[in-house]
């Protein structure tokens, strides 16, 4: 599995919303690693390998005692650094008794976990996700935990919004998306897809948000940050008011936010939000927008959810069928290329040495 894993390990991944980590044990699988998360009494979040050193029982089945985790089987105790501080029926503690402690950092209302080499876990590498801070941009999102698809399928989905026309017809989907040209640019860590639809009839969702009659210029500027966050700057403004030139004052601006965390090779945790800079005090609107995304199977993200899981099932059923790419996939392919570059830098297996027989 190590050689084939599609996700880098030396990266920060969203593990939970900050508010979800409390003075109790919660279990997650991140990049194939079982972890148990909790909050220490000083407010800091902690993450340990979710398997007791002794007999591998998940520590999440035990309990929190102060800032330490007590295994629910034989009572071994581990501190927030993963070091054993108690062993039953002996006077000393085996010096090698440890579970892994994962580096954590809280930023942008999320708890980020570094599953790789802890010595490399630099908080400066946390993706820029400031849209989620709850200050200038406002919105309440959620998480699809254990979404049954390769995390890269979610990235594909978000990096190409022509799918809106077909998956999200009647809300944000519109024929104009498929006919407007787009541009893809990249750096060594980011890829950006920019699409402007000039002088179009706004789709129903945006017409309601704008609350004004007339044609609009619609933009979708989607930023991917390797390995797995996507921020889509989206909105509409009345045509002719200068939005393409930078004046969005006659429009409404939102951003879809996605931090996608691999759970396994074929499943992921999808932390999402949709935030906006208009009517930021309107809590009813915040709730409505949340429901527009996830609503018991009827939201736009529920529609994506169904497509993504069906796609993963098909991939597993037809493992050898090729995956064809179209022009519209340029953004997704740049994203995948950047992920592959990180994987290669992380130490893809060395080619076997050719040696003369002796």
């Amino acid at each position, binding site marked *: 599995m190590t050689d084939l894993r599609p996700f880098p390990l030396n990266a920060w991944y969203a593990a939970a919303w900050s508010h979800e980590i409390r003075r109790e044990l919660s279990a997650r699988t991140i990049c194939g690693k079982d972890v148990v998360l909790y909050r220490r009494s000083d407010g800091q979040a902690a993450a340990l390998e979710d398997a007791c050193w002794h007999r591998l029982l998940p520590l999440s089945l035990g309990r929190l005692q102060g800032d330490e985790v007590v295994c629910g089987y034989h009572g071994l105790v581990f*501190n927030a650094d993963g070091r054993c501080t108690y062993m039953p029926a002996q*006077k*000393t503690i*085996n*010096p*090698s008794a440890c579970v892994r402690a994962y*580096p954590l950092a809280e930023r942008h209302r999320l708890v980020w976990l570094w599953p790789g080499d*802890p010595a490399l876990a630099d908080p400066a590498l946390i993706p820029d996700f400031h849209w989620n801070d709850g200050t200038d941009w406002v919105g309440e999102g959620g998480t699809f935990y254990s979404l049954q698809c390769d995390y890269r399928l979610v990235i594909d989905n978000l990096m190409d919004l022509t799918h809106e026309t077909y998956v999200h017809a009647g809300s944000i989907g519109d024929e104009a998306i498929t006919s407007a040209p787009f541009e893809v640019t990249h750096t060594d860590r980011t890829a950006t897809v920019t699409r402007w639809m000039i002088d179009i009839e706004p789709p129903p969702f945006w017409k309601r948000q704008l609350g004004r009659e007339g044609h609009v210029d619609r933009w979708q500027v989607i930023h991917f940050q390797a390995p797995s966050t996507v921020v889509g700057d989206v909105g509409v403004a009345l045509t002719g008011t200068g939005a393409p030139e930078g004046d969005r004052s006659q429009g409404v601006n939102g951003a879809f936010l996605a931090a996608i965390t691999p759970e396994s090779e074929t499943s992921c945790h999808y932390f999402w939000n949709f935030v906006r800079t208009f009517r930021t005090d309107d809590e009813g609107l915040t709730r409505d927008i949340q429901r527009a995304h996830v609503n018991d199977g009827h939201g736009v993200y529920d529609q994506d959810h169904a497509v993504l899981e069906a796609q993963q099932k098909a991939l597993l059923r037809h493992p050898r069928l090729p995956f064809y790419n179209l022009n519209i996939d340029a953004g997704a392919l740049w994203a995948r290329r950047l992920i592959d570059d990180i994987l290669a830098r992380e*130490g893809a297996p060395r080619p076997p040495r050719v040696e003369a027989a002796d």
Partner: protein
Amino acid sequence: MPAPLDWRRARLAATRDLTRDVRLLAIEPEGAFVPPTPGCHIQVGVQVDGRADTRSYSVVDPGRDGLYRVAVKRLATSRGGSRYMWSLAPGARLLVSSPANHFELAPGRPHYTLVAAGIGITPIRSMALALAEAGAELRLLYAARTRAELAFADELGALLGERLDLFVAEEGRRIDLGAVVAAVPTGGELYLCGPIGLMEAGKRAWALAGRPAASLRFETFGSSGRHATLPFTVRIPRLGLEIRVPENRTMLDAMEAAGVAMIHDCRRGECGLCAVRILDADGVVDHRDVFFSDEEKAANAKLCTCVSRLPGGVLTIDTADRAA
């Protein structure tokens, strides 16, 4: 249950003598290279008296060139592993495991104090390199009997400057663990590797100073005691056995070879599974484990057969065998 080891074929790429008795071996494994982490070890398949066995050796650097480097001390009382390793010439074929780590270096601490004595420098060196590279606050205290026995000293001196402190017993300098512990800043950690006496003194000083037990890290190779390593005799009245333990064999191995059923796991004096009850000892018991507490060792009720021994004489013990 230890995880099944990932054994792979390897080639001895080069050797270099660091001191008269410490040899550096650079080993190139086949297949994907699993990078070593500070404090880790690899297992190496060795041949001892014509039998296949395994030995663990700490990896001394990050191996960025795809080689595992280990430093092996030639011991007069070797159980055969070091003699075998010293017999190898470059190009020799080996079996090695991927690295495992029982002595992990925690990142992000405000200060690190590293203490090594003798061949205990091997895991400590990899830690010192990693910490220096990361720009961490560190201090390395390194002791040996003579100056000529200090492996890596020049190169560590060049890297660490004032942060390296050498203690040569022959020149009258010994590590004062009380003073070492007192100098560890709050939140700092102490990493120790060396003979059992050093580790016991470190544990006592750490506990006496009221420091958090989990911030003292140590690794034992289980190969050093307070007394000379000499042959001795184990007598087991219940089984009517008298077993000679040569100086180059553990008591556990000698007992198993004599047909005594034993259980064991770590084989380095940590887990306590191989402990047996002492009935009588006509000499001092050289406890070389870190499983029993000081009080338990003083009481001499049991010993860990994987590492502990008697410096000659007869040790009478009982085992778990009972008539069916």
